[in-house]
């Protein structure tokens, strides 16, 4: 039976259920489980639920060491940028150890962090840094856009034997949706068609899925049928589902909250150019953040970020264009 819950609650539910299922799962981070009232602490005790000081290098490095020796740690990092302090551990340790050991070692950790908080958090707390991780072989990156996916992908991330960066858009934290109760795992690496359509494909990630679905509504009112595809996981990336959609529509808009060259959109565009070129009836268009840091003031922030209007305009411009045969 599905139950209506918020995105944040869906993540917490998955962690709770997985910790019940597997005593090797532990959970720690800064500013969590501070008092005995904390539900995770109540359920699992201080041995498995801990407070960490502000020490990302050690928090993540310790998780890696614990994972190499039998535990399955989840590290709460709150904001993805705080991971940058520990970039060696994230990029050059966790995903390398299995390979360098010739397959002997595994590092089952989950690095959980919010991202893209477009609410006046300015230059260092609102960014999308998944591009830094999605090209690192050995590292998985998931980006759920609904409460159900939030639960299912968290369960999958915890059960995965590889390091998984689990990124959740802060802007969706209190969005509600139906979430299946009990055992529910969304496999990593499988995209989801969030809305069926025939005229144009919109591939979007995270918060941008919500914006793209709203844009698709607007387009529908004007008689344009947009299909919205959410890759859900950036690494591995389900190119096949995206190309199949392009096969059907012949047109592609990519929506991404990151700046152009650090977006997942740029990578997806390259994959479609190689694997779906013959199906394209117009050039691909990317709707991304402008190439700036995120400014504090609201009109500046709005100007820099993608929005419904920009998506609608991009879709229309793609629909107006034709590839001219040489």
């Amino acid at each position, binding site marked *: 039976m599905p139950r209506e819950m918020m995105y944040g609650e869906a993540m917490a539910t998955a962690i709770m259920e997985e910790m019940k299922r597997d005593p090797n799962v532990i959970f720690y981070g800064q500013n969590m489980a*501070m*008092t005995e009232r904390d539900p995770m602490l109540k359920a699992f005790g201080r041995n498995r639920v801990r407070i960490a000081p502000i*020490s990302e290098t050690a928090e993540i490095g310790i998780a890696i060491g614990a994972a190499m020796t039998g535990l399955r740690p989840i590290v709460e990092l709150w904001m993805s940028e705080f991971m940058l302090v520990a970039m060696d551990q994230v990029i050059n340790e966790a995903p390398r150890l299995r390979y360098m050991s010739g397959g002997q070692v595994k590092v089952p950790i989950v690095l959980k962090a919010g991202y893209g908080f477009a609410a006046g958090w*300015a230059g260092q707390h609102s960014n999308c840094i998944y591009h830094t991780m999605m090209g690192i072989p050995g590292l998985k990156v998931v980006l759920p856009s609904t409460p159900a996916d939030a639960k299912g992908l968290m369960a999958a991330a915890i059960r995965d034997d590889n390091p998984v960066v689990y990124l959740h858009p802060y802007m969706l934290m209190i969005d509600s949706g139906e979430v299946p109760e009990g055992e529910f795992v969304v496999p990593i690496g499988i995209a989801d068609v969030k809305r069926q359509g025939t005229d144009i494909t919109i591939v979007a990630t995270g918060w941008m899925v919500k914006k793209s679905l709203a844009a698709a509504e607007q387009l529908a009112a004007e008689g344009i049928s947009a299909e919205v595809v959410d890759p859900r996981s950036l690494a591995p990336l389900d190119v096949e589902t995206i190309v199949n959609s392009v096969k059907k529509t012949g047109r592609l808009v990519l929506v991404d909250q990151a700046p152009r060259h650090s977006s997942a959109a740029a990578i997806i565009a390259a994959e479609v150019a190689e694997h779906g070129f013959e199906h394209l009836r117009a050039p691909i268009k990317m709707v991304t953040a402008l190439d700036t840091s995120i400014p504090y*003031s609201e009109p500046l922030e709005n100007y820099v970020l993608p929005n419904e209007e920009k998506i609608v305009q991009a879709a229309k411009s793609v629909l107006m264009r034709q590839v001219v045969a040489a």
Partner: protein
Amino acid sequence: MRKKEDLGKDRLIWIYTQMVRIREFEERVKRTFLEHPGAMRGHTHLGDGAEASIVGALATRNETDFVMPSYRCHGYPIVLGTPPRNMMAELYGRKDGLCKGFGGSMHLADPARYFPGTSGIIAAAIAHATGAALTAQVKNTGQVVYCFFGDGAAKQGGFFESVNMAACWKLPIVYVLENNEYQAYTHISLEDANCMAGDPLSKKAAAFSIPGVTVDGTDPLKVYEVVGEAVDRARSGQGPSLIESRFYRLSAHGNAITVPPAPTQFPEHEAIGVYGNKAEFQAAKANDPIQRFRSELIKNGVLSEAEASRIEQAARSEMDEAVQFALASPLPSPEEATNYVYA
């Protein structure tokens, strides 16, 4: 050696005035969340409770010394002479803001006043401050760097690595570890090894074989003496010191974190909101550094009741004017967002 007895009447009054100006600014910022909901975005952090520590430390400063705090950064530029109206306009996201609306509360900068900039990433600025000390040493300018950071930041690699380098290179810097008992919502007794062992945080200095001193950060004159000694040491080429300044943050860590369009406001202090410890918070309130210093100055005949009130009234008017200025300043035009990406 600097002695508080050497501080003349004018200087004592200056210290009190700056403390009051910081408090009044922070009170205005806090009230904005009620009076102009939505005007301040993101995350805003206040320095109430830190006034004695900030002003006592900066009272030892030469005019060209650098000041580099963390993201909880409103108090310092007020002392350096940055106009509060431009600071307030920045927090309101306006065109006349100190950083033209690009930075907000966590990223104030006023390089012309030796306040080169701030970071929202914990402990990042400890390294930046150490770099400013390197500039002073390489150019042999005689400047000293005042580096302020929280107890929480002292758990970060950036702290340990920076202080070790400063000690190796004998850089002219004073590290002021502001122990306000909390790292966001976590009490220090849950996350600091020294504290858990019943030791002061200044013990961390022993790891680098530099002086480490703990001082009552609610008394500006004690801070003045202790920081003064460290500054003199730094300026005379003897390298860095670590000062643990102990005080209590009197407001919550920051405004509540909400997803727009839900409005945000200042919650109760974590002592109450998280730990249900009203007594701890009330004890800190009763030890308000501003009230204490005021009584002391009046008792010692430095200030009369009327003079103290005049200082407070002037600060209140100054900060009221700052809010009016911020409200009257236009929002930046959207296309400006692409400015300042590159130098």
